[in-house]
């Protein structure tokens, strides 16, 4: 084993040695630099490996051969091995990345770089305070030097500000150190810890100065303007080093010296970390410059790790995993993003769309963003999950809430950025110039992130490697993305079928899960069939679609809160990418994501409370929660309602579903929304009995109003797909209302609605989506008369809207029948009336839909239109088969459900007759109704056919007034503003008040961010003043 001391010897020897080399030998010296960095990595890596195997114990390195405190000692333990390896790896990769630039500037630049990395190693290893000071200074000077690798005035200014700030800071550090020596008689950190200098006032001040300075080195918000300038103006290649390596060392030092002050200091570190995490991310929301934004994000993430360090006494045995997961995640993701920035070479984040020129880099970018926000399967997901669980279960609820707030703020700008990258108008032809030395480090950190996520699994209760199986398949699909669409479609269907087969045993015994299994998996396969309609390669579609289904499958099969949440986030990520594929989807996908992230955090909090009360991660534990019942229930309910788009939380849905691709709309509408319903049902079923009636009552009202507003908005839509989207909101309102009644009948109605909505919304979106593509317009008034051109589509839509409107004989009526029985039995009359009214409105848009598309006059440009392709019609007709079966034999489905429900609710429906359902109020026979109605219908049709000869056939004609075309031709179309009267009467109900509400909130946040960031005046001296003020305030809070 090579001793860690050789890290210093090699680096310094090499740095001095490079001085011998003239300009002609730059290649040799650059090679030597890389070799040196590689050797340093090797040294720390072999120690890490040895510690990992347990073959060595912590080593103390005594310099000069004397014991501490008489001489300086370094320590190489497991933690130090991890940290130095991290630093050296990023140093080596950074060296590779900046290879050309360093060579250009010359040997001295290489020396400075290698010395910087070495100094960070020593900072981690040293146990001597003054030695720490010396190497911190080395780090500062080297950093100030590396800033000006970017040769412009801005970087010079940043360099000076940085030197000023660190100058003030290190002066104060020196005062702290010398007085620590004065009181403890030692410069050794361990010696000072055992001396307990903090017991006297003056000793406490000395320790305070040291801790405050080390905190300031980590650039806490808001005394960090100088740090931000460094991030913004330095070469991105170097920004990665500052963000990843320097921060790692700084955090470790803080962790190392904190025990000097004793337990009392930890809460203050938590406070500082939280302020930094929330504040920095908040201000970041206003940032347009990519590197500065990364700076804000870096500081935020460092603040988060700082918080965790402060939480060490609270987190106990989980501390190491959480801190390391979050640190590693930041380290890899931020280095990757900075390096990407060096390739993109665009200042504005809105100009990053050039990233789309290179698929691999685009995917890496996405990985980094999702890792930073904490999505699965990245380490931060595991870390944050454990963190929130531990915080809530130790009653540190506000810390958990603030951490989630900060994460959300980070999401605001990260997803904005992601949206810009994925969708922004491509304005240039320029291609990306990528050299291998820049590309490979980014790939390495990206892959490491995935691997790190995978290896986080055993550290979290409830996590299984099983969850990674579909992810592996997704990666495979991503690798074969160059194949034509139909091949990938077939593979996807095969993969999904096989996976469904694997997981079926897991859901088999549970009827509710089985129903959702059918919706998610069978429905998923059916909607995938529609994909055969698409030509070309359809790049990027299959991995994300499968990601959504993988998430849904995980939700279904998991029996732990962790698994559920894992699946939930996976599904959210997949659906986000699906939605953003639509042409005009950017803003809608953005708001979908923000609502989803917020919802997910509520769910996480809810689970955390449940976990606190139940003491286990098992989902089933929700059933008997003693404390926090209402709180957990409410959080979970609201969280799930973001996905079901309940009133107030619905504003993302119309755009997201309406603008999505033609086969994505059915996926997200018919299937994805049911994930929220599944969550709600699970919640209500497990916890509904324990919580008070009031909450259910409120939820019932929310459901009723959601139904009303959704349906009403649908009526006034001119856009066919938006109409269907609003209709989904309304339908999900019914479902919420039905299950909130918490009676057997209500739940039966709810299940019926779930099944129906899945069936008919899938049909409608599949077919209408196909028609929208065929006609080339979303607008209903630009369609018409397609009946003869597309008869099969017409029948499909007809059956769809019959079910939707709840008209006999189809199963929609069954839902209604159960529903009204349930309402009457429950006694929720007023709400019932509202829902009833909403139901009648549904007739109106159903009529508008089918009338505008299929009836009336055929448009000139549609004369040669063809029927939809079989790839669309076959799945639609399979679903129609489902409707017919469910309409004819509802008891086959509903009776088992009723039986299952009777375990939870008193039975109110009797299934004794053959196909006859009886309640105390009335009875209903699905088969009979179907047979009677169909017979009648056929009779009427036959009669009409008989009298057809007597009708007059009219020729088509154009609309013209006095030989003029109307100014806006669409205004004369019957379906344009079809229900103007209704709009006049009750249209105010759907005035965009809720949209305005959310917009006001977001404006307020942005204004606040804009106000706070005025602190960063750009003046280096002001930043120095900030530092002093920060220290003074910190002093008064902690010791004053």
């Amino acid at each position: 084993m090579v001793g860690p001391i050789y890290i210093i010897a090699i680096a310094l020897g090499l740095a001095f040695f490079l001085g011998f080399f003239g300009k002609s030998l730059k290649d040799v010296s650059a090679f030597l630099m890389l070799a040196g960095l590689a050797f340093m990595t090797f040294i720390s890596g072999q120690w890490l490996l040895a510690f990992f195997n347990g073959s060595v114990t912590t080593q103390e390195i005594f310099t000069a051969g004397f014991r501490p405190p008489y001489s300086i000692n370094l320590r190489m333990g497991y933690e130090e091995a991890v940290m130095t390896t991290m630093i050296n790896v990023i140093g080596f990769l950074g060296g590779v990345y900046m290879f050309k630039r360093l060579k250009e500037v010359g040997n001295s630049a290489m020396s400075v770089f290698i010395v910087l990395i070495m100094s960070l190693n020593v900072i981690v290893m040293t146990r001597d305070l003054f030695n720490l000071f010396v190497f911190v200074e080395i780090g500062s000077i080297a950093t100030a030097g590396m800033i000006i690798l970017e040769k412009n005035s801005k970087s010079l200014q940043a360099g000076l500000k940085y030197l000023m700030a660190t100058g003030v800071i290190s002066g104060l550090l020196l005062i702290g150190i010398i007085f620590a020596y004065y009181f403890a008689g030692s410069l050794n950190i361990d010696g000072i810890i055992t001396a307990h200098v903090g017991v006297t006032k003056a000793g406490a001040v000395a320790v305070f100065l040291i801790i405050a300075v080390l905190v300031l080195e980590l650039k806490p918000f808001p005394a960090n303007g100088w740090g931000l300038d460094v991030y913004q103006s330095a070469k991105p290649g170097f920004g990665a080093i500052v963000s990843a390596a320097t921060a790692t060392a700084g955090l470790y030092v803080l962790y190392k010296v904190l025990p000097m002050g004793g337990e009392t200091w930890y809460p203050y570190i938590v406070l500082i970390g939280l302020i930094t995490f929330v504040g920095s991310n908040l201000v970041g929301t206003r940032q347009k410059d990519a590197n500065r934004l990364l700076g804000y994000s870096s500081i935020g993430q460092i603040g988060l790790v700082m918080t965790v360090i402060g939480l060490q006494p609270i987190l106990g045995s989980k501390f190491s995993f959480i801190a390391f997961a979050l640190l590693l995640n930041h380290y890899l993701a931020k280095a990757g993003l900075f390096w990407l920035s060096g390739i993109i070479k665009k200042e504005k984040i809105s100009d990053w769309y050039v990233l789309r020129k290179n698929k691999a880099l685009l995917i890496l970018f996405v990985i980094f963003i999702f890792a930073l926000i904490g999505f699965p399967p990245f380490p931060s997901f595991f870390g944050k999950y454990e963190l929130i669980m531990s915080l809530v279960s130790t009653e540190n609820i506000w810390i958990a809430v603030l951490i989630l707030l900060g994460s959300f703020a980070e999401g605001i700008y990260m997803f904005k950025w992601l949206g810009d990258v994925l969708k922004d108008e491509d304005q240039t032809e320029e291609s990306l110039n990528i050299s291998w030395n820049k590309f490979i480090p980014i790939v390495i950190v990206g892959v490491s992130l995935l691997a790190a996520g995978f290896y986080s699994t055993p550290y979290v209760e409830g996590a299984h490697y099983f969850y990674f199986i579909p992810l592996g398949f997704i990666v495979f699909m991503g690798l074969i993305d160059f194949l034509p669409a139909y091949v990938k479609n077939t593979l996807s269907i095969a993969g999904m079928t096989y996976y469904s087969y694997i997981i079926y045993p897991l859901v088999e015994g549970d009827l509710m899960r089985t129903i959702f299994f059918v919706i998610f998996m069978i429905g998923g396969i059916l909607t995938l069939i529609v994909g055969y309609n698409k030509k070309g390669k359809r790049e990027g579609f299959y991995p994300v679609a499968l990601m959504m289904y993988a998430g849904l499958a995980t939700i279904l099969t998991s029996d732990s809160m962790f698994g559920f949440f894992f699946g939930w986030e996976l599904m959210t990520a997949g659906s986000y990418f699906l939605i953003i594929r639509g042409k005009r989807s950017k803003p809608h996908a953005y708001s979908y994501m923000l609502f989803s992230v917020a919802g997910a955090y509520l769910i996480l909090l809810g689970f955390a409370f449940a976990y606190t009360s139940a003491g286990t991660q098992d989902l089933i534990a929700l059933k008997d929660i003693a404390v926090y019942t209402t709180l957990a229930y409410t959080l979970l309910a609201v969280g799930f309602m973001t996905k079901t788009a309940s009133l107030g939380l619905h504003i993302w849905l119309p755009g997201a579903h309406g603008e999505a691709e033609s086969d994505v709309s059915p996926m997200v509408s018919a299937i994805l929304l049911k994930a929220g319903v599944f969550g709600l049902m699970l919640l209500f079923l497990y916890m509904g009995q324990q919580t008070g009636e009031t909450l259910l009552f409120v939820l019932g009202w929310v459901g009723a109003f959601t139904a009303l507003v959704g349906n009403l908005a649908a009526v006034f839509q001119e856009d066919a797909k938006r109409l269907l989207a609003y209709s989904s909101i309304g339908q999900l309102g019914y479902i919420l209302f039905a299950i909130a009644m918490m009676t057997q009948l209500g739940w039966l109605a709810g299940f019926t609605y779930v099944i129906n909505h899945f069936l008919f919304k899938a049909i409608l979106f599949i077919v209408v989506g196909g028609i929208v593509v065929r006609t080339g317009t979303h607008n209903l008034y630009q369609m018409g008369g397609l009946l003869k051109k597309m008869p099969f589509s017409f029948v499909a839509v007809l059956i769809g809207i019959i079910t939707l409107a709840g008209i006999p004989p189809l199963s929609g009526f069954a839902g209604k029948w159960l529903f009204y029985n349930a309402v009457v039995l429950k006694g929720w009359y007023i709400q019932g009336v509202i829902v009833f009214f909403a139901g009648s409105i549904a007739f109106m848009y159903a009529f508008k839909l089918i009338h505008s598309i299929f009836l009336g006059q055929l448009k000139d440009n549609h004369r040669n239109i063809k029927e939809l392709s079989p790839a669309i019609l076959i799945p639609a007709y399979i679903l129609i088969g489902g409707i017919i079966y469910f309409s004819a034999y509802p008891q086959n489905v509903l009776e088992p459900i009723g039986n299952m429900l009777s375990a939870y609710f008193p039975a109110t429906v009797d299934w004794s007759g053959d196909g006859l359902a009886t309640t105390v109020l009335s009875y209903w026979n699905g088969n009979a109704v179907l047979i009677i109605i169909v017979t009648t219908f056929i009779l009427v049709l036959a009669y009409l056919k008989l009298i057809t000869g007597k009708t007059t056939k009219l020729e088509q004609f154009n609309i013209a007034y006095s030989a003029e075309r109307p100014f806006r031709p669409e205004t004369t179309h019957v379906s344009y503003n079809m229900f103007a009267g209704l709009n006049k009467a009750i249209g105010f109900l759907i005035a965009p008040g809720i949209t305005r509400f959310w917009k006001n909130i977001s404006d307020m946040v942005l204004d606040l961010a804009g106000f706070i960031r005025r602190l960063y005046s750009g003046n280096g001296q002001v930043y120095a003043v900030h530092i002093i003020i920060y220290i003074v305030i910190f002093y008064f809070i902690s010791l004053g």
Partner: protein
Amino acid sequence: MEYIIITIGFALTIFGLYGILSQKNMIKIIIGFSLFTTGINIVMVAIGFIRGGTAPILDEAGKEIGKYVDPLPQALVLTSIVIGLGVTALMLAYVMKLYQDKKSLNINDYKDLKW
């Protein structure tokens, strides 16, 4: 005596800090840093002082007195002085280069990076 000297040290430190924070001329700011570090160095040496002690050189003259001051803070201050020179030189180089850019020594003129 050492009380007076440590007072001078603290006073210089605070005075230097005031200079750093209040002066607009960048050269003056660096002068402030110079005073700041000088003050800290004085404090450090004063910490190691022992009443009646002599320099920690154990030659014949020193052995006669037999009471020495602490060599450790002195060693630290040596390091600190040299570091101070390095930082000062670096800052001045920055200022020189910035001056070529904008022909101003006023720190308020260098606010291109903000928010």
